[in-house]
């Protein structure tokens, strides 16, 4: 879940004024098209999001959303994967596809004058993937290799264990890449069924940002996606409530550092407390002026890495405090971290510290919205998450309105029960 988490951390929850020239159209079959005309540079970016991800998976088919995208890019009904890559390169562009937590994405960019060709290739990949049986084993092997590499990487493993502990039986506990066991059980038929179940027009949102005409892009999108018949409604699985048992789990594996993750469940995207929790996480661990960095690293040298973040998603998100430290300092570092949690639940945050945290949050948000690629993703993401096109502006205002007592209140409310994972060298 960590790659997803990091993406969302940067992506979701910071905020700033949005440029205005965005248009939205829902086709008759439920497919949504969003276009942002941006005349700045002769480039175009496309983000096609589908409501498909680990949120619909279970331990037996964990990683199937990402797996199906890995096989999709190996070729379409009309051309092989390398021919597709070559054709996109001929547009001065690139294309990729991956599965995430609440959604999966086909992402592509090109020179703006090739926007029509780029949309065509995106539609071809989304609607006519070959999903060849011959590609399944090779992609599975490659993914299992990545899972193994991830397990060998102490911080990545620690994050995976943490999400498993925090979410319990809820699907957010599932790692996005899946497990070697789950991938072994996913065959060609399962991939095809998974693709057909989710690639339905009413589950898809296409966002385009760049030096394009919105009317022309919408017309082309209607032509490419408008004839797609509506699919059968997806039966939502019954999801267990996330656990947050308040457990402390300890793992060992060969490594230099000890990883310490402490966290709790937090509001979902769009929740009224979201802005305050975001500010709270920034006060605790947003950059070099965050409390964990200042107190644990700068003043006491108890940790190398000291950060905190909150990543809202459709179901409850997580507020996570993270330390990477030398094994001999681990006990004291964990104690010091817990003291910072206590402090933020006892005392009001100062005005200067609050201002810095807000500036950091909103500035980072603006920084992340500079390229067409990111803007296309944001447009599609807010649409598919159902928070509305004015979300960035609402969010910015909400962050600016957060008071010291708001931070205190959400610290008390959300940081009461803490789940902990410690991964130490063996």
């Amino acid at each position, binding site marked *: 879940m960590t790659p997803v988490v990091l993406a969302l951390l940067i992506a979701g929850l910071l905020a*700033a*004024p949005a*440029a205005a020239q965005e248009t939205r159209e829902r086709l008759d079959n439920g497919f949504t098209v969003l276009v942002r005309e*941006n*005349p*700045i*540079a*002769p*480039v175009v970016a496309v983000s096609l999001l589908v409501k498909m991800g680990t949120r619909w998976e279970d331990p037996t088919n964990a990683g199937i959303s990402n797996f199906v995208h890995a096989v999709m890019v190996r070729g379409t009904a009309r051309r092989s994967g390398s021919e597709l890559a*070559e054709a996109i*390169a*001929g*547009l*001065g*562009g690139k294309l990729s596809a991956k599965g995430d937590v609440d959604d999966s994405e086909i992402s592509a*960019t*090109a*020179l*703006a*004058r090739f926007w029509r060709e780029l949309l065509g290739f995106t539609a071809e990949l989304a609607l006519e993937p070959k999903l060849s049986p011959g590609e399944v084993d090779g992609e599975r092997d490659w993914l299992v290799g990545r899972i193994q590499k991830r397990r060998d990487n102490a911080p990545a493993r620690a994050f995976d264990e943490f999400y498993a502990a925090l979410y319990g039986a809820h699907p957010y506990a599932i790692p996005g890449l899946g497990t070697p066991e789950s991938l072994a059980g996913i065959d060609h038929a399962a991939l095809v069924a998974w693709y057909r179940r989710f690639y339905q027009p009413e589950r898809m949102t296409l966002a385009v940002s760049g*030096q394009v005409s919105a009317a022309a892009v919408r017309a082309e999108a209607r032509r490419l996606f408008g004839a797609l018949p509506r699919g059968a409604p997806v039966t939502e699985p019954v999801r267990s409530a996330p656990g947050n048992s308040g457990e402390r789990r300890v793992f060992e594996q060969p490594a230099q550092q000890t990883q310490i993750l402490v966290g709790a469940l937090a509001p979902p995207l769009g929740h009224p407390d979201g802005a305050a929790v975001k500010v709270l996480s920034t006060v605790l661990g947003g*950059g*070099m*002026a965050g409390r964990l960095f200042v107190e644990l690293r700068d003043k006491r040298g108890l940790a190398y890495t000291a950060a905190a973040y909150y990543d809202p998603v459709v179901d409850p998100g997580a507020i996570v405090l993270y330390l990477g430290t030398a094994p001999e300092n681990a006990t004291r570092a964990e104690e010091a971290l817990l003291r910072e949690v206590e402090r933020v639940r006892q005392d009001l945050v100062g005005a200067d510290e609050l201002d*810095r945290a807000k*500036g*950091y*949050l*909103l*500035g*980072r*948000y*603006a*920084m992340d*919205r*500079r*390229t*067409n690629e990111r803007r296309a993703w944001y447009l599609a993401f807010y649409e598919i998450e159902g928070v509305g096109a004015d979300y960035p502006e609402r969010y910015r205002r909400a962050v600016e309105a957060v008071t010291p007592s708001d931070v205190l209140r959400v610290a008390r409310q959300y940081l009461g029960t803490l789940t902990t994972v410690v991964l130490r060298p063996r």
Partner: protein
Amino acid sequence: MARAALGLAAILLLAGCATAGAMRPAATATPMREVLPNGVVLIVQEQRASEVVALQLWMRMGGRDEAAEELGLAHYIEHMLFKGTPTRPPGSIDTLIEGFGGTSNAFTSYDTTHYDFVVPTRHLRAGVELLADLAVNASFPPEEIESEKKVVFEEMNLIEDDPEKFLLRRLYEVAYSPHPYGRALLGRREFIQKLDRDQLRQFYRKHFVPKNMVLVVVGAAAPAQVRQLVEAAFGRIQAAAPSRGETPPVPTLGPARRVDVSRAEKQAYLGLAWRTAPLANEDVYAVDLLTSILGDSPTSRLNQTVREQLRLVATIEAGYGAFEKAGLVTVTARLEPADLDRAEAAILDVIRKVRADGVTEAERQRALITAESSYAFDIETAEGLAKTYGQAETTWTLDNELAYLSRLRGITAAQIQAVARKYFRDEDYARVRFVPGAPSR
């Protein structure tokens, strides 16, 4: 090719230190350029891609301005500039920029160094004032000078440990020495070890004068407002004569410039280099396209022939480092030691074929689209556009930069063949080979 040069500089030198259908529309197509009375050049462009502004201070000063016995000074200054001024204690500058939600960065090359911020537009004034403060008031705190030495040594280790980076480093050394473009920008360990505050301050005072400064501001800000802020902050810096020395002529390449190096890696590395056009030379456009056709993608000639068909190398690529005083096209490959001779012969064959038969129209078109795309995505962000302007103003001209793509489009297949004949002669190249064995650095 301004882009080729930058890309190469970054790979080669690792001198960047992160601390934290239509072309451009007419309304935003041209930057405003102005020279303040003290000599500071200001380049401003309003670009509302997002609510941020990029501020970059480009200095007409780089590794080539060091005396032979003070190598590494320009880069060390780059490290020290963010460490403080009389009114800004160590650490406070990073914290300030981070508190804005912004980023800071700095880079050292042979011809230039630059100091970059990206901040939300409401911090424009603070950003301009900070850059002006750094430009004249850097305090070089002694304890920071000492602690930064470890960081620079670590940077040196990183380059030496990375065979691909170190191959390019050595190739430049072999192709340029004793010209300054052959130097290690990070300097020599012995010199850095003994480096003191007076040396840094002296170099800083000598080079950080208004006539060497180019301030580039691109972003969601009105040019008039930017101009006012810059005039207040930079206009008051006392004028002084810049003292940029002449660089020696670049050496010609040939069989005397071939070096083998024993390295710990199991695979071998091969690097070949041809002297080509410097920036501001008419040939740069054709050399840029030729380099792309030879080796910048899986479909390039070197990849298709030497890697795919002959299977003599695991990887192969070509790069063009175009600098103010000289240019170099490099071809680098990773391969089995037993294939070194055959791979070199095959690379020369590929080049010979271009000289004899030229390139196809499809190849020319493809190279053009690659260049266009790389340029278009560069200028998509405020800092990317600012960088192309700063680079152009300090090493060639802003007008050349603005005309770059249309000039590139005008290059014919015959012109590409002509530069292949002019610069890529059979014997006139430098060579470095890394061969497995006991390391002999």
